[in-house]
């Protein structure tokens, strides 16, 4: 996924495989392995694919930044409806309450 995010253009399976092999970790991934992973990412709507001749070329369906923003937005959403998916450590509070909490901590 990081390879796709770092690339400026849609990549083919072969190109992704080359990039993964070239990252210096000494991995030698099979073409079919890379293809399977890309296929799964497609099923999870993380990548889009387009036909290019006989092969598919893959692009991330959202940028790294927008994916991070989606996660953080969901986490910060205080509406209570969407949050059932997450269990928070502490929700944000308004400034007056935050000040009261700080005072309480100082007294401990």
């Amino acid at each position: 996924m990081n390879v796709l995010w770092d690339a400026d253009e849609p990549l083919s399976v072969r190109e992704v495989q080359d990039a993964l092999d070239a990252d210096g970790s000494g991995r030698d991934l099979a073409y079919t392995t890379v293809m399977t992973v890309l296929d799964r990412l497609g099923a999870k709507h993380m990548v889009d694919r387009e036909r290019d001749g006989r092969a598919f070329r893959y692009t991330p369906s959202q940028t790294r930044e927008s994916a991070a923003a989606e996660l953080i937005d969901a986490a910060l959403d205080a509406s209570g409806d969407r949050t059932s998916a997450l269990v928070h450590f502490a929700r944000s509070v308004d400034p007056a309450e935050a000040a009261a909490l700080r005072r309480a901590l100082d007294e401990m």
Partner: protein
Amino acid sequence: MTPFLLGLIGIALSLPVPALLGRADWPYRSPAAGIVMWQSLALAAILATSGAGLSTALWLVSEDDPQPWRVALHVLLLLVGVLIWARFWWAVWTVWRRTGARRRRQRHLVDLLAEPEGDVSDRVGPALRVLQHESPVAYCLPDRTKSRVVVTSGAIEHLSADELRAVLEHERAHVSARHDLVLEGFEFLRAAYPRVLRTDAPLEQSRVMVELLADDAARRVAGDRALAGAIVALAGSQTPAGTLGVGSAATIRMARLRDPRSGWWAAGLAWAISVVVLVVPTVFLAGPWIFHAIDVLRG
């Protein structure tokens, strides 16, 4: 009489009783017993409502001298019972699917975006993911097998080592005790009731109580002071996305950390309420009615 008494109990346990208890703060003194109390109230309400529906149906088919107004009342009662049942199972289906889909999506995103951090995680359990983002946020995505605890790099910066340990322990407690299932149960129930018969008290109070339970786990590992520091650091450092009144979970949790006496009388009261609401209607109404029903059905 049984249908109406059960119906009344069902309505009382659905709305006025929880609304009244929701205003009390003694249940927070004993969160585990408090959660049991809310669950018993919910179960008793469901049982009473179902009992009302069943006994109404029996009355309708077995009454020798049905006057129109009594029939109308019974049909109404039956309809409310059936409606709540249908809505309950519909809610179970939709809420379950929706949360599941959302959690999966979140987990895929988290796994792609965040590198697994071996050095911060110090033991086996839910996988820890550190998200590169300046907002200090910590949460967990509970699941049967693929749980994730997520903290942002911003959160790690805001917290001392002890505070971070408290946060992680707190989230692990949520995951391992499956607090999400407890809350989901109350969400199903809330969705089952029509708006006029609904109260948010059980869900709201239980939300805070699972936090208190997870706090207890965190305190044992990291200590009161570290946990309090973590609550203040994470609750007080963000711009709120919505307005939350004073009296939110953070304040209750802080108050409990400063005065952590265990409320044995609160636990006792909560257990007593649980037993009363479950046993009394069963013994005095449902039991005799079942014998009556057997007699009637045998002819």
